[in-house]
């Protein structure tokens, strides 16, 4: 059979398919969105159904500052990627570091709020339905922030070691896609917990 060549070879035409990293990350984001959707549905379903206090209205404070931190970190990673593409490694590393700092600040904010709720207001995951749904939804998001921070830090370490160049910018784009997703989910969580849920 090897003697027969393909009668209609098309090797001359250009053949370009999407980058597998982006496709894989997009699929992961769909899966994660489905997971978050279930938690959001549970949160909304149980709003106002707690048999005992405290209620969201009594104890929640809107974390405006930390939200601004997280959302602006999305801009930072976006421009970091652009700078890497143009080969400006130093500026890339600076913005990457800024992203990590802003993400860590957000995480600190979540931690502080939890500390205040647990020790100040006596709200734990087993106190009432609000506690159960609040800690699991916000905690799920915080877990994703931590995973993102770990990945960003790995890139930072490699970057400081001088191993990240423009040839990796497609991979950095995949990571930044994940980080944008984490931010976008926070917009949903914020709306559900601090706006609709009160």
């Amino acid at each position: 059979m090897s003697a027969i060549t393909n009668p209609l070879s098309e090797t001359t035409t250009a053949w370009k398919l999407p980058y597998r990293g982006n496709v894989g990350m997009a699929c992961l984001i769909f899966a994660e969105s489905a997971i978050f959707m279930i938690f959001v549905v549970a949160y909304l379903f149980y709003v106002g159904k707690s048999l005992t206090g405290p209620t969201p209205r009594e104890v929640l404070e809107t974390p405006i500052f930390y939200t601004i931190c997280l959302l602006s970190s999305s801009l930072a990673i976006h421009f970091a990627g652009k700078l890497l593409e143009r080969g400006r490694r130093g500026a890339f590393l600076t913005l990457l570091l800024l992203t990590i700092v802003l993400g860590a600040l957000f995480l600190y904010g979540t931690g502080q709020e939890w500390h205040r709720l647990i020790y100040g207001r006596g709200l734990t995951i087993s106190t009432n339905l609000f506690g159960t749904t609040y800690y699991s939804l916000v905690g799920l998001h915080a877990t994703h922030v931590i995973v993102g921070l770990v990945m960003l830090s790995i890139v930072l370490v490699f970057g400081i070691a001088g191993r990240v160049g423009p040839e990796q910018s497609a991979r950095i784009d995949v990571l930044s896609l994940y980080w944008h997703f984490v931010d976008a989910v926070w917009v949903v969580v914020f709306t559900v917990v601090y706006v609709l849920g009160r």
Partner: protein
Amino acid sequence: MSTDAIAIQTADAAGRPWVETLHEWVTTVDHKRLGILYILYALFFLVVAGLEATIIRIQLIRPHNDFVSPQVFNRMFTMHGTTMIFFVVIPVMFGFANYLVPLMIGARDMAFPRLNAFSFWLTALGGILLYFSFLGGNGLYGAGNAPDVGWWAYAPLTSRAFSPGHSSDYWTLALLVSGFGSIGTAINLIATIVSMRCPGMTLGRMPLFAWLNLIMAGMVILAIAPLTAAQVMLAVDRYLGGHFFDTQAGGSATLWMHFFWIFGHPEVYVLVVPAFAFLSEIIPVFSRKPIFGYPVMVGATACIGFLSLSVWAHHMFTIGMNSYANGFFAITTFAVGIPTGIKIFNWLGTMWGGRIQFKTPMLFCIGFLFQFLIAGLTGIMLGTAPFNWQLSGSYFVVAHFHYVIVGGILFALFGAFYFWYPKITGRMFNETLGKLHFWLFLIGFHLTFDVMHIPGLLGMPRRIYTYEPGRGWETLNLLVTIGAFVQGIAILVFVANLVISYFKGTKAGNDPWDAWTLEWSVSSPPPAYNFASVPTVASRRPLWDLKHPEDPDSRYE
């Protein structure tokens, strides 16, 4: 094209120690080896879950039987259901997809080979966790061992009060872990099919097998993820004192039902769409005709995938939803019948006027067509809300979904096993044993599951431990159990055929069926690198073009 082999040093292949071979298999990232691992893993659990089914059937063979205790009986049906769905059918479908998709689309491997291996080992760990519960489920309370809450684990059965010890936790963890594995493989399949196709393999020229597995992978992502979320909630309830499904604190047991069936119903289609994929490859080859209505096939499958996400509550008609919800879910359930009917019509259209060869794989596919039709019709019956109120939770339901899974999915799977066995092993299977397997299994299947509808109509509830004599159920249950044993013998014939043919079968050659997709262009078994040079395709049947340069398909497509 791609038939020139690359010389690879195989001099030391013969005299290597077995540890080295084992190490190679454990650390492999090759999609073909992982595919085989998935399939063998699933076959192992098929035998385990089959034995559990046998225990259930022996217990029900006559009234007032006490072959096993009620506690063991509960564990058996829970483990049988959980194992069959999560550790038999999903892994075996992933196994075939893993093995065949890269070969069919002319790729070197999956998009993320290491993720592929990671996903397999996660799934494997899930199965081990589930069965470790027999040893570790006792926990501190000395109560129970394996999970006994039914495969859908309705609240409040899973709450600490009713499920002490760790048996339900093993169930949760097993499904959580294997769920991550499934999502990983689904992501991998989509990325492979979208990004790794060989030049010329446009979406419109892709084999239907790849198309249908693409849709299946998309459904896995949308269906397994909610299950994962629900399992996390259950773990929060059981370990951190949460109240998601705790009615004492205002939680809702119904919410668990919704979450479970949002996963549970699309899951059925996750299992059956790969079965459709097998049929769409096997029927054309043995009818000697290209598939009838290729674009409609793709469209109908996408339509099934979409509709299947909006039918879940037809499992919940009896919990008392309002009439609008009942109406909505009844209508969407009926609507799934339309694209499914289109597909059956297209397979018949493919066979119509073809020169049909009744080889073993084709026999199983033809069996599928009849049985899946009947399974679909009883599905329509159960989708009718008032009818469902009467029969929900009866053996009629059990008969219905076993008709789908055994009569449909398993028959297609057997067809796939026989069809690709020569490619995977390089040997032909024994046709006589194959035909014996088919007829034995067909008789056993119909004896079991045709008859099983009737005790359901007579009011026999599912999951019942034993029953009173004199209700007209005795003879029927005896027949059902006899049928189960006939099926068991047929499975033994199948396994014997696989094993004997592996050692004694005649050499298959590259293309024993004179088929048309790319996997048949490489040697059997395929070399590690798949294709020596990257193939280029110009039509849906690249091997037809290769064999018939005077009249290629690409002229008409």
